């Protein structure tokens, strides 16, 4: 005869994911409350890469602080530098010559492509497919080589200055970019063959992590995270800057709001970036690449805000100046900060394996969040 010893109660289990973890894309510490394998609550703990950039910028000159933003969202380093340079130009009321503008947009789009390639490789690796990682990095090396010829560096290219770009493009730039476009067009189709239609991948992504359009706006999500839910928020279309107003490209949106929709948005964005580069590469105007500015820049008293579209969403630079040689206060509106706040809302009720898929499609870069 077996006596009843008693009953056990299933309580909630609290586990830590990170800060050192292969799938947290940086140092993100998540405290997850689980009931069995179902997620009850996700609480992100930040600050493991908080490098006090905003305080540091208060002691750097207007020419120096631009390059610190390269280290924030390092996968869109050109685009971040572009936003800072545009904000300083707004304060100085300097106009960039047409050649400088077109070169900046070309560099931006190449950076966006490189960022999406890395996202694709890293996300596929998170979900379990190891091979796409190597394909993605092979293509990314092609862009890195182009950047290295012109800008001198592969990842943190300090190329944008207030007034234009630091140096003219390399004489082989156009030839190499055209070769790259031909090469990459075939590769995107290969990416689709490898991953997009794969039945296992679709099962892991469809219906997971749904975000409705109102929630996306309330959480302040921008970029492919919000466009996957149907919110129209592409800064290049709504508030065109540089030469984006004259280019023909579409704002890619999906309506499903789940992980698969965000994935499709980014794949389509890669194709749109290729078409923007194609439109511009043969029409780079002649002339100066940099407007004449003083060596030491001093902004008048006032405040300015500029926004650009990085690979993750809307990046904003807010400069408050009191007339000195260094800014009084700089605030960086980072896209990842708002995208991350929607993670808890999206992940409740899913299994812990789905959390990795959701984080992969949010495309978080933690130094961008922590600043």
């Amino acid at each position, binding site marked *: 005869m077996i006596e009843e010893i008693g009953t056990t109660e299933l309580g909630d289990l609290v586990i830590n994911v990170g800060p050192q973890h292969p799938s947290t894309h940086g140092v993100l510490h998540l405290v997850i409350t689980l009931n069995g394998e179902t997620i009850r609550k996700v609480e992100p703990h930040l600050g493991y890469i908080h490098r*006090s950039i905003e305080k540091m910028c208060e002691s750097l000159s207007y020419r120096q602080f631009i390059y610190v933003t390269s280290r924030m969202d390092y996968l869109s380093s050109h685009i971040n530098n572009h936003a800072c340079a545009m904000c300083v130009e707004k304060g100085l009321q300097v106009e960039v010559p047409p050649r400088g503008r077109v070169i900046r947009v070309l560099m931006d789009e190449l950076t966006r492509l490189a960022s999406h390639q890395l996202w694709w490789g890293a996300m596929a690796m998170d979900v379990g497919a190891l091979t796409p990682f190597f394909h993605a990095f092979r293509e990314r090396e092609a862009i890195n080589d182009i950047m290295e010829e012109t800008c001198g560096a592969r990842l943190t290219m300090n190329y944008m200055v207030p007034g234009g770009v630091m140096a003219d493009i390399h004489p082989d730039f156009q030839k190499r970019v055209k070769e790259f476009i031909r090469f990459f067009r075939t590769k995107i189709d290969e990416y689709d063959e490898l991953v997009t239609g794969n039945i296992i991948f679709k099962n892991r992504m469809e219906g997971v992590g749904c975000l409705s359009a109102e929630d996306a706006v309330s*959480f302040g999500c921008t970029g492919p995270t919000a466009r996957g839910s149907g919110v129209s928020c592409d800064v290049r279309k709504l508030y065109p800057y540089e030469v984006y107003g004259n280019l023909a490209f579409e704002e890619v949106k999906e309506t499903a709001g789940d992980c698969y929709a965000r994935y499709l948005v980014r794949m389509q964005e890669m194709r749109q970036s290729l078409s923007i580069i194609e439109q511009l590469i043969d029409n780079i105007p002649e002339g100066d690449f940099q407007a004449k500015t003083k060596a030491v820049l001093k902004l008048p008293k006032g405040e300015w805000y500029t926004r650009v579209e990085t690979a993750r969403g809307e990046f904003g630079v807010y400069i408050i100046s009191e007339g000195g040689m260094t800014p009084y*206060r700089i605030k960086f509106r980072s896209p990842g*900060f708002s995208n991350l*706040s929607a993670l808890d809302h999206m992940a409740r009720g899913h299994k812990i394996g789905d959390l990795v898929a959701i984080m992969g499609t949010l495309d978080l870069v933690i130094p961008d969040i922590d600043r």
Partner: protein
Amino acid sequence: MDKAELKTKIAELLPAATFEDGAEWTTAGIDAADWAEAAPKLRSSEGLDFDYMFCMTAVDWKTHLTMVYHLTSTVHRQVLVVKVKLDRQHPVLATASHIWRTAEFHEREAYDLMGVEFTGHPDLRRLFMTEEWAGWPLRKDYEDPVNMIKL
């Protein structure tokens, strides 16, 4: 609606607001005590519908603190900047996290780095620094001889 119309509409809605001229967007300044009623009005009034807060900044002006809210409406495509003046010794403000969910993290950041307290926030604790950190790092009078090496 353009800047001038928006300015008149806001002036009717919030009679105590002051306006700044010469800025890129309509900029309204209100007192800390009025923010609790003003925020829901900005969110849901007819013709305003400011549903997307894209930036929230805390600024230390040495004599007082200011919270700057950048709001935009996805429906009407207009931008409004709201500046709320706070007392430096005792900066307290009503939360906006029940109106714009993005404010949850932004208010935690303002508390952590500047010391602004938000009443009604579901979970106000430090975000970037460790729990035991003393002081408000982003303030202008923050001294830290151990960690900060001055140039």
